[in-house]
């Protein structure tokens, strides 16, 4: 099969220095001069939005992404993906291993990026229609009859906390902040309909549910939201990994183990 010898991109153009075809003289991201113009003038949220959506964000979009970036930056040391990064930290593993650990654990369907992906699919299917949401959330099965795949089956409605009892204060705070930016947004609708949705889900809203609505408001696909969610949660994992690395493994819990009866060799 004939394969091209070049890479195609709608995102990135590089022009070479006159004396070296491998050295970049100027780089353009979706047409904007990165080092000549964006550096010093564009913010982190602007650059993220530009990379993913191909356009500069409007002011409310940049503000929403900024809110999300701060809200998601650190899930805290109790959270599983940060815990994983800290295991790498106390073990003295390379920095990339800490972030890889955080990405792998934070990728899952229970509190991770896979759950965000599924929650965004819910938004695509139901939009701001309460009856569709109620029907969707009352279905015990996933949204569609997915074939067996690499991901373990979903066990709870995406975007809601199966182990919670009420909407946590930070979830309400982030949702309120996002809802304020645009009264017509999914976030504003989510805030207005929260009791009905939580009743239908049988669980309180989680920060993932808020992030899914916000990414959908930003025009992100489920795949784009999944990537951004993974990316935006890394700063906390990195900082906590370094913190525990400095403290050392002797000050990090090793925990007790409790063997249950099936440890006699029966297949689980």
């Amino acid at each position, binding site marked *: 099969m004939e394969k091209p010898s070049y890479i195609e991109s709608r995102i990135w153009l590089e022009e070479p220095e006159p004396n070296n075809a491998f050295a970049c003289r100027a780089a353009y991201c979706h047409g904007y001069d990165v080092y000549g113009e964006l550096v010093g003038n564009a913010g982190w949220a602007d650059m993220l939005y530009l990379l993913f959506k191909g356009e500069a964000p409007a002011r409310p979009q940049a503000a929403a992404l900024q809110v999300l970036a701060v809200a998601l930056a650190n899930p805290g040391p109790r959270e599983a993906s940060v815990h994983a990064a800290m295991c790498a930290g106390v073990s003295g593993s390379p920095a990339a291993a800490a972030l*890889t650990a955080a990405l792998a654990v934070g990728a899952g369907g229970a509190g991770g990026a896979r759950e965000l992906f599924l929650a965004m699919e819910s938004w695509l299917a139901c939009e701001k229609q309460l009856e569709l949401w109620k029907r969707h959330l009352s279905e015990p099965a996933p949204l569609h009859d997915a074939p067996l795949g690499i991901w373990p089956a979903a066990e709870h409605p995406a975007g809601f906390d199966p182990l919670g009892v009420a909407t946590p204060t930070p979830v309400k705070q982030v949702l309120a902040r996002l809802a304020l930016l645009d009264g017509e947004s999914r976030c504003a609708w989510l805030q207005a309909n929260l009791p009905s949705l939580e009743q239908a889900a049988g669980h309180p809203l989680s920060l993932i549910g808020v992030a899914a609505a916000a990414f959908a408001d930003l025009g992100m696909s489920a795949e784009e939201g999944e990537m951004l969610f993974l990316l935006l949660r890394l700063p906390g994992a990195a900082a906590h990994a370094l913190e525990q690395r400095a403290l050392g493994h002797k000050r990090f819990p090793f925990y007790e183990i409790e063997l249950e009866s099936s440890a006699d060799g029966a297949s689980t």
Partner: protein
Amino acid sequence: MTSEAFGPELLSKNVGRVKSRVGACFLGSHVIFRGEELHAGLAAGRWMDVFVFGITGRRFSDEALRLLEAIWTHTSYPDSRIWNNRVAALAGSARTTGNLALSAALAVSEAAIFGRGIDIRASDFLIRTRSELLAGGELGPWVRRELTERRSLAGYGRPVSNRKDERLDPILSLARSLGLGDGPYVQLAHDIDRFLLESRLRMRMNYGAIAAALTADVGLSPREHYLFMYPAFLAGMPPCYLDAVARPEGTVLPLRCDGVAYRGTAKRTWKIG
């Protein structure tokens, strides 16, 4: 998992301890591995035995273990063009650690168009198909329905080549020599291949289908097959990494600036403020 407790109560029951059904190490004393003492015999055996026992909780015959190992060796390709191996080579060229290189390359092997994504689907497809046929269904309509609903058949067709998969004859030959090459799932994999050929559907059987059929015939479920296949490409990866490390840094697949063909928006000016 079923439990009468839920929410914070369920969480509280798990605070401060790991609950395990698979084993533990008692440092300075012994290790329990799925109910067996690791150093009392299990550890002196084959790694494949321990690995598959860890996945399934079941033990397999020497012939089956030999076959399982061969399923890996027959797909160990030290070719740095292949996407997962290319990661190992680029990692070597960029002078990252060997462990990071191989971990990333294995992570990439959980792909949708090859590797683990295909493995679990291929095994699931074969097992569902056999159940359908045993229940009286017909192969042709079933395969066509699968193609319509899922747009592809895991284990049939190959991303970069439509020639006959070079791994099929050697692994089947070995499997037959072990008495494990003619089980019902292998027969079924061939039946599907024949149907596709006779129907002029240009999707030849690939290694994913035959590997899934062979492990189904020794009793692995789709998820067990998926986990068993995790290191399948591993042996080909260290050579790619080491070859790159032995070359001048940064020289694996360098791209000139014009090696990226830009298809995007024309140059424009950023609106400041």
